[in-house]
């Protein structure tokens, strides 16, 4: 399954729901989506990784890059990651200390302004 990214608005946030495997093959698709959203001047982006089946360090790199880009524009990033197998990869790399990993999109949206 190739990586797919669905975009939708939720309250004042833009949500990018990612489906598939986030690796070297899928990373450019998500990176481009993040770059496009950043250019529109959004204030809060939510990356929903609920339907991500696999992530490796290249995929984590896209999430790290998203945070850097959004902060440079004064915007926020929230990550939704309820699956333990995906969350564990963040933990192995200590990135759970950089990102608050939310259980649901609703949690991430309601955290707007407090992350």
């Amino acid at each position: 399954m190739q990586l797919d990214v669905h975009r939708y608005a939720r309250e004042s946030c833009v949500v990018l729901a990612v489906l598939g495997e986030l690796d070297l093959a899928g990373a450019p698709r998500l990176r481009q989506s993040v770059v496009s959203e950043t250019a529109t001047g959004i204030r809060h982006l939510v990356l929903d990784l609920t339907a991500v089946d696999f992530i490796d360090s290249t995929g984590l790199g896209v999430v790290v890059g998203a945070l850097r880009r959004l902060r440079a524009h004064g915007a926020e990033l929230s990550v939704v990651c309820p699956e333990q197998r995906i969350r564990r990869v963040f933990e192995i790399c200590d990135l759970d200390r950089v990102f608050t990993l939310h259980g649901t999109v609703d949690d991430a949206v309601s955290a707007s302004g407090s992350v």
Partner: protein
Amino acid sequence: MSSGARPVGSVEIAVPPVPEYLQMVRAIVGAAAALDDRLQAGRVADVRLVVSEAVTNALRAQAAVQAADPILVRCDLRSDRIVVEVADHGPGFDPSAVPDLPKVETPERLRHESGLGVSLMRQLADSAVLDSGPDGTVAKLTFVVRDA
């Protein structure tokens, strides 16, 4: 496989140096590792992650010199371990010179979108040996399997 018989043997694949083959390599190596029922599901996930990192490094190395040779992946199921080897025809590198990333608490860390691969391999495999020279790199990744 619950008979107690161990599926000793090996699987070899040669894949074009194209990122779209990564998923297939993970699936094949993961399925081979899962044949050994002593390996728990979480450990099979580790094998898939480590092989993904090794093949990603191979893809990047070959892309740097536009090498079209296939990347060779071999998965050996042995009585006491699983050994995965990934061989590329990239320009080689000095594994001991891979720099540590800045501490995760520091803002500098966000400047690094890559560089975690070797660290992940070393953390998750019981042994990760990188043999690199001007003709390419072989990553030898060993996962010890123990009886319950």
